[in-house]
């Protein structure tokens, strides 16, 4: 009966071509938006991370500093600034924390494989701006983000991410609802036919198959459009970021696969539920 489902599903699609196209676009837009949002949020993670750690400032020490020199430097800072809490990042967390605080070092760290990672100290203080004084210290290579602007950027990034994610969810729910309503309307339009099919011995899978095919097909198109759209938008954003000297954005193959899957699975689930609820009508 697979052949029957495909043939009848194709007929349904042909008769409702515009609606099917609209359904595909309605699904592709939120799935694509969700994909772009996730990619951008992954890129903005360091900035967003500063919101939760607004009182923490990262300080990068000179890599050629010996253990004794580093201990002496730490001791002097603790003496001069008793209001600071200094923590040396453990070697096993060093690479991850360095990328978190200094994303522009990512390429360098990946290229050198962490052979000579500079020591990193995280300073917790009520006045992050006060850490700026360390920029003059010869032992220090760089002082991490600490200004209110950074914090603002982080908050804006996080807010934007939440808003985009919420918009994706709302649009996606609308699209799934649209798929369910479409199936419901088609069931109503074909009610006589379904009754006849039942009376001549058609099984439920024979009756429902074409509706599932007709819903899965726009879903497949939607998934592909969403994945392609996400790749294109992320590529464009990455180009813009690199022009500004920022690290580029990437989109993971797993995300693209998830988008393609969501395009098919979500409308199909809506169709299955609608068919379960409304296709089981009496014979006449």
């Amino acid at each position: 009966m697979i052949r029957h489902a495909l043939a009848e599903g194709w007929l349904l699609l042909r008769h409702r071509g515009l609606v099917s196209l609209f359904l595909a676009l309605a699904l592709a837009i939120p799935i694509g938006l969700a994909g772009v949002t996730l990619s951008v949020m992954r890129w903005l993670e360091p900035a967003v991370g500063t919101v939760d750690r607004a009182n923490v400032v990262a300080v990068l020490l000179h890599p050629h500093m010996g253990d004794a020199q580093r201990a002496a430097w730490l001791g002097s800072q603790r003496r001069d600034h008793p209001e600071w809490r200094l923590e040396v990042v453990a070697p096993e967390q060093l690479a991850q924390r360095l990328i978190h605080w200094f994303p522009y070092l990512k390429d360098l760290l990946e290229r050198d494989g962490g052979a000579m990672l500079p020591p990193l100290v995280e300073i917790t203080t009520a006045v992050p701006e006060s850490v700026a004084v360390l920029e003059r210290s010869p032992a220090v290579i760089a002082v991490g983000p600490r200004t209110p602007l950074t914090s603002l950027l982080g908050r804006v990034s996080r807010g934007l991410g939440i808003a985009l994610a919420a918009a994706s969810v709302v649009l996606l729910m609308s699209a799934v609802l649209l798929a369910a309503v479409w199936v419901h309307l088609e069931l109503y339009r074909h009610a006589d036919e379904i009754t006849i099919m039942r009376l001549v011995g058609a099984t439920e899978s024979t009756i429902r198959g074409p509706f599932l095919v007709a819903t899965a097909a726009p879903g497949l198109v939607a998934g592909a459009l969403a994945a392609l759209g996400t790749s294109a938008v992320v590529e464009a954003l990455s180009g813009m970021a690199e022009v500004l000297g920022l690290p580029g954005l990437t989109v993971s193959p797993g995300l693209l696969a998830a988008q393609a899957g969501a395009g098919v699975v979500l409308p199909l689930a809506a169709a299955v539920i609608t068919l379960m609820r409304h296709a089981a009508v009496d014979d006449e």
Partner: protein
Amino acid sequence: MIRLRSVDKEYDGRKVLRNLDLQVDAGEFLFVTGPSGAGKTTLLRLLYAAERPTAGEVWVGGERVDNIARARLPGLRRKVGVIFQDFKLLRRKTVLENITFVLRFHGLSPREAHRRAYLVLKRLGLHHRQSALPDALSGGEQQRVAIARALAYQPRLILADEPTGNLDADLAGELLSLLCDINYQGATVILATHDNSLLESIPARAIVLHGGAIHYDGTWPP
């Protein structure tokens, strides 16, 4: 083949069938007759489980169908060939597709379904209209397509509800002779009609329904 035991059927408190007891043996030809509203169509609908009785038992081919599970309905209906009073043809499918469609449920390959559908259409003189849609056919032609569909898979039980209602006398006679042939080959045929001339054309068992009860059960004419 068929057994009804103390069957009642009510619609909104109005009794359509009353305490009906009936047995039809395999290979029998049975006329069901009576005035309009006597319960002929309801009786047939009980046999292919389009209706459930209010009380009593309905057995078809050794299977109790008055409380049959929904999942087993397709299996029952594939054993029964029903010729509907209002044809029940699929409007978007051609004459040939209306028949091959049902044959495919029975596991026939597309080629075999096509061959058998063509043969049955030829037998009913409709092979030249195989590509027409039902709406392009006359009432009589649509009736013959409905008959072809019911006969195509050679069911052991044929239920015909006023099958000659849209046919002229010659075609009605041809249909009856076709049903007699099928019956002769071993199929059980139950034919509901209020056309007395049809009843008189062949000697067979007949039941006369009146007000939902059997008033006569025996060979026709009495």
